[in-house]
């Protein structure tokens, strides 16, 4: 359904004749910080406490947000800490909408996690945050399979919650709808995010069965028990999200059963380079070139060796001509040992070297 009759694209292109070399949005955001699509932005409308250490942030995205996220995907959220934008990814917990005013992410404050603690405890409603478009393949197919199993631990519930809410919203749990089993491990009932809502959903829908395991008293999920928890698990499409050891055990269990095709896994924590050594494979995304490097070769030199048209200038870290976007991975500044590991961070290639595998946007 198209509602807009005003050709906004053309209006803004015409407006840019007045504001060149800037964009009209660069001025409009002075009136309302959400009136710009130069960088995706959102305003925190509400911070809803879920448990002692987790909260849901209700965010109203600004111009340019496409409302096309699929249930289970995550978005990036960027906030300035000490003047510098720090980015993290969180699963969207709200159901999908074609259009709408807000979306929600649910965040658990990690011990040692400065940013997550700030998001849970320090964020005032009204704060403007940067957003990154939804990503991820851990999603609910449309139409959903007839029988599903979710294996969830801790804050791994968030992407699954978006899937369940989407099913609920579409009225898919009714007659002839999918049959869903949810196993949810959490240390205590109090630490369970969305517990009340899950219990309510289970009560309302015959097609949803919730299995809770409180690991402080019941111990961790033993996959040998899966036959008891969900006897027909082999016939179900399975989604697993939770702490790394739990996921490792699940992956192994499904591999042994020869059912790896049935299993979808979402990991929250990044895996660090196995040997912790330096160097790795540099991938240049746009040119499709790859090169093996040691930890002493600068990214710039490596790119040149691989035949990539790297921008360069002074080659001593002063002119910033060589700056390129680091899509993923970690690089180390050879001058001072600082490491840069944020997705989509701009790095000076002439003075940095790879720490593990890296992908660059060039």
């Amino acid at each position, binding site marked *: 359904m198209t509602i807009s009759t005003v050709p906004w694209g053309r209006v803004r292109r015409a407006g840019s004749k*007045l504001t060149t070399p800037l964009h009209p949005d660069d*001025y409009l955001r002075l009136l309302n910080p959400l009136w710009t699509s130069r960088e995706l932005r959102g305003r925190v409308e509400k911070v809803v406490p879920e448990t002692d250490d987790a909260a849901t942030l209700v965010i109203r995205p600004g111009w340019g947000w496409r409302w096309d996220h699929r249930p289970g995907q995550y978005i990036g959220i960027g906030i300035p800490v000490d003047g510098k934008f720090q980015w993290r990814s969180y699963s969207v917990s709200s159901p999908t909408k074609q259009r709408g005013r807000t979306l929600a992410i649910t965040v658990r404050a990690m011990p040692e996690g400065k940013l997550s603690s700030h998001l849970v405890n320090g964020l005032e409603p009204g704060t403007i945050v940067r957003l990154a478009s939804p990503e991820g393949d851990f999603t609910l197919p449309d139409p959903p399979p007839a029988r599903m199993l979710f294996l969830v631990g801790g804050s791994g519930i968030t992407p699954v919650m978006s899937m369940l809410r989407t099913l609920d919203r579409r009225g898919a749990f009714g007659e002839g709808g999918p049959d869903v089993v949810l196993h949810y491990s959490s240390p205590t009932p109090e630490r369970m995010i969305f517990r009340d809502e899950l219990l309510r959903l289970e009560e309302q829908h015959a097609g949803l069965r919730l299995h809770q395991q409180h690991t402080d008293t019941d111990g961790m999920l033993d996959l040998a028990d899966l036959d008891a928890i969900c006897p027909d698990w082999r016939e179900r499409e399975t989604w697993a999200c939770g702490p790394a050891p739990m996921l490792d055990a699940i992956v192994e269990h499904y591999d042994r059963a020869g059912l790896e095709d049935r299993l979808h896994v979402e990991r929250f924590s990044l895996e660090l380079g196995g040997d912790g050594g330096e160097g790795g494979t540099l991938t240049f995304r746009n040119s499709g070139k790859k090169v093996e490097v040691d930890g002493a070769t600068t990214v710039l030199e490596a790119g040149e060796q691989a035949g990539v048209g790297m921008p360069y200038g002074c080659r001593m870290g002063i002119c910033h001509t060589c700056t390129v976007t680091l899509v993923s991975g970690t690089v180390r500044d050879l001058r001072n040992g600082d490491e840069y590991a944020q997705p989509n961070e701009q790095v000076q290639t002439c003075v940095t070297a790879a720490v593990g595998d890296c992908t660059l946007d060039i």
Partner: protein
Amino acid sequence: MAISDVTEYTHLSEEDVEQLGRELDAIRAEIEESRNAEDAAYINKLIRFQRGLAAGGRVAMLASAHTKAGRPALVAGAAMLGIAKILENMEIGHNVMHGQWDWMNDPEIHSSNWEWDTAQPAEQWKHSHNYVHHQFTNVLGHDNDIGYGILRMAREQKWHPANLGQPVYNALLASLFQWGVALHDLDLERIRKGEKDPKEMKRQLRQIVTKGRNQILKDYVVYPALSGRQWRSTMKANATANVARNLWSYVIIFCGHFPDGALHFTEEELEDETRAEWYLRQMLGSANFEGGRTLHVLSGSLGYQIEHHLFPDLPSNRYPEIAVKVRALCEKYDIPYTIGPLHRQYGQALRTIMKLSVPNSWTSSDQPEPPSPVRDRRRKSDAERPSRRPELGGWSRGRSA
């Protein structure tokens, strides 16, 4: 302007120079460590203020065209627009493109994609300025900022009868400064000598034409058209704002390397230059001027030219505190720290332009003598010199190997 070889010019031993380099590295590290939310707030606030001023100026001009407010609103609008353009080009654009704010990790205030409100495309500026000028500062034959290819600014440059026109060229350069800058990276001298790659030249020209056309359309077609019958006064007001910006940036930039005391260097200086020697060349080749906070912001912090050349990518709002430390180092090592009031610094640059329009023998040099007795030292051969800091990339390694 004596051509000198940095370490021979001064009385410093090689170890002194390396120690000075380490102390400057320490200043850089300290600032990098302490960049914080206040610095980010500074540039964000300044950008908001500048955009508000630009929009306000445009609106005032349009209002003057369509209401009875008339002349005062037009004059105020032109003044606001002029100041907005100056702020955008100097303290915001120039410094953002140096990467001074890249540390914020904000793509909207980043050297890789900033485009400024002047005729020269940012990409070409970053090459001609960030790389060529800042790397080869004041090295004759390498740094095109010495006279911008049209003025003779060093006694060592050969005199030519065409130099007699310098007073005129200078006036033209000052009033058309943004267009002079726009053509800067084309490198007129290389084109003259036929050394320029024609494909590259075509690409650059296309970039300049596109950017320049948009700039001209905006100031001399679109806004005048919106002003209806008053189109002529809007056009004049916009031209005034542009020329004011041209004159101001010209004056500030000529105060950076042309007052007496700022030295020029020969090509040999570059050979196997260490990082510390590079620092020293930046200090001896640059000149500061004094002024209040407002003057410094309006001049893009280029009154701290010495600090800017030592640390071109540290946030400009930190230069005042860096200056205190750099000045102390200059005293400690007995190195000149060239500084004076703006009018004197520009006066000296202007005198040099005039003097050098005629052959050397007609005038005398204004360059001061070295500060203390020069140590008699043979210039070391490459093999005897310390190699560059190895972590600086293959370029340095390739040369010093």
